[in-house]
């Protein structure tokens, strides 16, 4: 943030586009600007309303060279835009260098991406030192399939304005300004509560991810610190309340399930073509959701748990069981519906309500009964 942390004292801000670049159709400029504001709306309680006359909090213009703010532009390249921290007068305003070639594609200078960065300043964010962050000062080509905010950007803006009250809001698909949501936010889950249960658990690039409602915790088995995030901060198109998740480490892919759909992610990118229906995996139509899943690296099999049964998919033969088996038959000591499961070293960890059962597949028995928060420093 800027020195003194200037920020807007209100949650509904106005913006006005004073003039348009000839590089793009005015409707494309409007859309790029709106989309950029929607990204910031998706992670904060802020709303943005377009005005066509009079003064607005954020005045947007295209200009060349000197343009009456003592910071002239410099022709093509170099400085491509700038914006001012929240405040009166110039405060919040964003200026774009008309000498750039503004585009809506990844060629030239993408207006949406630059506007998104500049509006970060308009809202109170200073430059980030993190080269992966949107607020890093150097422009780079962006990947439209990846949510443009880095965790550093989200942390910064939420430090100023708090989190979004919406559980799910994809700025890339939503061009509408949404009505203010209910102000009541459900209490954040307490990781050390004895009543804690999880929606899903999976390994993820050497860490373990524990999903609960719209959040997840990240924990490295040998590091004490725990990271707590919004699912939407990593994967904005994913719904909250994930049912099941598993990782295929050799492909660097993680599969997440919700209802009868699933998504495949790599890092914070949702791979194209998802969601897909779970039936493409070979499930019968009477399966409407998956309770838990994990990938057994040793056997190359994926296990899907549904009520008191499980299905297994053999990755090598690429075939699904014709019909499910009873969980207790293959995993003695594990009875009934389970919430989540993952593999760590040579053990499987089954979550069942307030209990976690460590299962040794070699001995075919439960070796320890643990609390659900066993992995956390409680």
């Amino acid at each position, binding site marked *: 943030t800027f020195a003194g942390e200037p920020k807007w004292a209100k949650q509904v801000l106005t913006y006005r586009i004073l003039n348009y670049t000839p590089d793009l159709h005015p409707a494309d400029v409007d859309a790029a600007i709106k989309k950029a504001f929607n990204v910031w709306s998706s992670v904060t309680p802020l709303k943005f309303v377009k005005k066509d006359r009079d003064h607005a909090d954020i005045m947007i213009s295209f200009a060349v060279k000197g343009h009456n703010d003592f*910071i002239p532009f410099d022709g093509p390249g170099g*400085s491509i835009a*700038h914006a001012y921290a929240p405040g009166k007068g110039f405060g919040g305003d964003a200026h774009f260098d008309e000498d750039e070639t503004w585009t809506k594609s990844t060629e030239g200078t993408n207006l949406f991406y*630059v506007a998104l960065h*500049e509006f970060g300043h308009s809202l109170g964010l200073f430059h980030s030192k993190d080269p992966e962050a949107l607020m890093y000062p*150097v422009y*780079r080509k962006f990947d439209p399939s990846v949510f443009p905010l880095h965790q550093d950007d989200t942390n910064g803006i939420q430090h100023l304005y708090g989190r979004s009250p919406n559980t799910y809001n994809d700025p890339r698909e939503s061009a509408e300004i949404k009505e203010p949501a209910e102000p009541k936010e459900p209490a954040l889950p307490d990781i050390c509560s004895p009543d804690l249960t999880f929606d899903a658990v999976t390994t993820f690039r050497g860490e373990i991810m524990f999903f609960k409602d719209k959040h997840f915790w990240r924990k490295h088995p040998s590091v004490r610190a725990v990271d707590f995030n919004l699912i939407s901060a990593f994967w904005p198109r994913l719904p909250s309340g994930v049912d099941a998740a598993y990782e295929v480490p050799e492909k660097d892919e993680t599969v997440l399930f919700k209802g009868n759909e699933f998504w495949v992610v790599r890092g914070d990118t949702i791979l194209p073509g998802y969601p897909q229906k779970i039936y493409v995996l070979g499930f019968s139509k009477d399966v409407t959701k998956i309770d838990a899943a994990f990938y057994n690296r040793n056997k190359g099999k994926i296990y899907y748990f549904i009520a008191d049964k499980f299905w297994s998919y053999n990755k090598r033969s690429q075939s699904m069981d014709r019909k499910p088996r009873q969980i207790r038959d293959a995993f003695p000591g594990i009875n009934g519906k389970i919430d989540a499961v993952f593999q760590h070293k040579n053990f499987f960890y089954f979550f069942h309500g307030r209990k976690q059962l460590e299962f040794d597949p070699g001995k075919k028995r439960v070796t320890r009964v643990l609390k659900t928060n066993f992995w956390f420093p409680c």
Partner: protein
Amino acid sequence: FPVDMREKKEEDVQLIQKYLENYYNFKKDGESSFVWKNNSPITKKIKEMQEFLGLEVTGKLDSNTLDLIQKPRCGFPDVAGFS
């Protein structure tokens, strides 16, 4: 033809000076641009810039630094010396 290294170097120096003036609040003190001492103001500013932008901190105009300062960027300064 051999490249005129002196001319090239002068261009680079002007480029970095302008960059530091624009984004790192650098003020020329009149000394020759070619005086590159460890503790000279321009070396200190280059180090500050390299540290901020995640480059290797050499205090010198190496190729990575030159590459980065020629890329398009936000016109807002990277240091807090503004009002």
